[in-house]
């Protein structure tokens, strides 16, 4: 014990501390490093029984309105300003006997396109992983809906803001690290919540062990998302929106598009100048005639 205590002396400890601090501020690859402290949600469609308790728990916690018959099992529901989590029955297009209940909500992208386009920074990616809309700041432009590859943020026509699942950011750190309402409510453990790297491992383990589970949605889609979904087949066969396997609305792509526009604007100014120069003679002739 004494030997071990001698090994990490005060100086060594300070050095380590300084090194870690420098690494965190200067050299850390922000998002990859954050993965260790980031949370993730895992939805296993092969376990889901379609009871919709997650939907009801979400509505209760977030004080959302309930429509008539909305929570009846097998009833098709769409995401809306009052429906942040939905459970729908989906059939595999290639094998119609294969049916699953798909738990669908905001995917909490690692690099969210919605936050990138919001003009007033009303959408933030928290260090915990949640993508949260500040409803007191949202201007109601709906640009986030257009940019989202999954079309998740929905406009609330009453409150005039866009709303969506925030992965219960108001439960996780404040209420003794409670799980999100939907995860807590699931009776068959189809939903899990924990550190992101643990969720990835868990998902891979299930795909390896379970016969039905074959695809993990969210590992690469939209540059990786903090919500993972285990599917029995590819998302396109289940009629889900297929996001590209790269970061959506990357800043370099934005720069390319804007740059092309500026080149176009410069070309237009060039044409205008040429038009003015070429017809200068005509103008002079007109002036001479009028004199």
């Amino acid at each position, binding site marked *: 014990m004494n030997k071990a205590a001698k090994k990490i002396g005060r100086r060594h400890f300070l050095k380590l501390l300084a090194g870690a601090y420098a690494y965190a501020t200067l050299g850390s690859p922000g998002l990859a490093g954050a993965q260790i402290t980031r949370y993730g949600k895992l939805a296993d469609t092969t376990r889901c029984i379609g009871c919709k308790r997650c939907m009801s728990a979400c509505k209760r916690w977030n004080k959302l309105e309930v429509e008539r018959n909305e929570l009846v099992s097998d009833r098709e529901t769409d995401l809306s300003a009052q429906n942040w989590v939905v459970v729908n029955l989906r059939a595999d297009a290639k094998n119609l006997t294969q049916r699953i209940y798909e738990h669908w909500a905001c995917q909490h992208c690692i690099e969210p396109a919605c936050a990138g386009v919001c003009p007033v920074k009303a959408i933030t990616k928290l260090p915990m992983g949640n993508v949260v809309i500040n409803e007191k700041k949202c201007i109601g432009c709906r640009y986030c809906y257009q940019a989202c590859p999954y079309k998740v943020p929905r406009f609330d026509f009453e409150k005039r803001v866009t709303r969506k699942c925030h992965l219960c950011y108001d439960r996780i750190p404040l209420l003794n690290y409670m799980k999100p309402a939907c995860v807590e409510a699931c009776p068959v453990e189809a939903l899990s919540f924990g550190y992101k790297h643990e969720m990835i491992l868990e998902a891979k383990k299930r795909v390896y062990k379970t016969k039905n589970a074959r695809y993990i949605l969210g590992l690469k889609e939209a540059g990786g998302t903090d919500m993972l979904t285990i599917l029995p087949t590819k998302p396109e066969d289940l009629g889900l929106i297929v996001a590209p396997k790269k970061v959506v609305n990357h800043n370099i792509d934005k720069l390319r598009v804007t740059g092309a526009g500026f080149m176009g604007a410069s070309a237009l100014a060039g044409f*205008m100048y040429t038009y003015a120069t070429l017809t200068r003679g005509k103008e002079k002739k007109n002036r001479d005639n009028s004199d």
Partner: protein
Amino acid sequence: MERSPAFYTWVSILVVVIGLALYAILMSLIYSLEVFEFSIHVIWVTMVSNYVFLVVSSTGLCIVTSLGHVFGMQRYELIGRRGVFLAFITIIFGMISIGAHLGHPERAMIFNLLTPNFYSAMWWMGTLYTFYIVFIAIEYWLLARPELIERSDQAQGPLEIIYSHMAFRQLDHSRLGAVLKNHKLLQFVSAAALIAGLSAHNTLGALFGHVEARPLWHGSYYPVYFLLSASFCGYSWLLAVSIATYKIKKENIPEDYQSLIFEMAQVLALLLSIGLLFTAYKMGFGLFTPEKVKPIMLFLKGPFSQAFWLFEIAIGTVLPIPILMWAAKQKNIMGVLIASVMVLVGVYVMRYDFVVAAQVYPVIKNSLPSYLPTFMEVLFIGGVLGALFLTYVLGEKFLPLKEERHH
């Protein structure tokens, strides 16, 4: 005309239309924004397309008028005042249109300043258009000031006071007053308005071009095409409005103005031909790009095909080209007027299709959401366009919009 029953009938119709729009806005405030453009999937519709149409027109008008004040083409100075005034009112009513679309326009103004997102094209667009509005307003004031001074000299009573205040006559004998008379200042402000306008317009195109999730919008095509369409929009507005104004007032168009109109008609025909090439490129290129095929097919064969072939291609581009060429050759003013109005109608439909069609695809479960404007929405759009025309009519009556003459 100005004291005729027809004038008062027109003004009363416009006032009624504006009243109905105000009623629609009131309803949206009392109940919810649902009375306007209610759709879960197609979330940007008529108000956005109306906004795009009006701000594109404004930039176009700024481009055309800057040929005179920035690039030194004196004959284009004839349309300077009218063009700049139109550019100012179209951007203002465009902003009103988008203001009614936004959930919280008041927050937009506050948080645009407090927490800007420099990666968002929408932030740049809002900011640059604010600069543009300021510059274009100063440009119009500088253009109108000499005549406002003249009018205040000639007028008596309250009109004299109003005109002299509008012209800031207290500056007359100051050093600033001398600077205001300098043509270089006008040139500088016009150049600033042009730069702000082009940049803002570019970011408007980029706003759509950045959206990777909408294959029809995504890419560098729209920022560039928007500039071209702005140019032909600007030409069409100026031709249509100035010819219509002279015809309604039953005044003769001066000879130099006429020759400018025919020259502008030729340039418009050329721009429309280039626009046609751009459209052909978009469609052709889209058919060979896997993710763009489905949205492009919505135009070629799908629910938007009628609007595309009839309005965008036939009425908006193909038919006006020979009409403009013929009218410029035959010196037929009515031909130019008809063709430019056709272009404006085509462009309006084009904007609507462009905004709506992109949102129809892709959607969940391969079903196409449809959209039909609500009654209140139609009232609002009618009111915005009505107010635009009423402002122009009042401007024509009370402000100096006629051609500039260099003595």
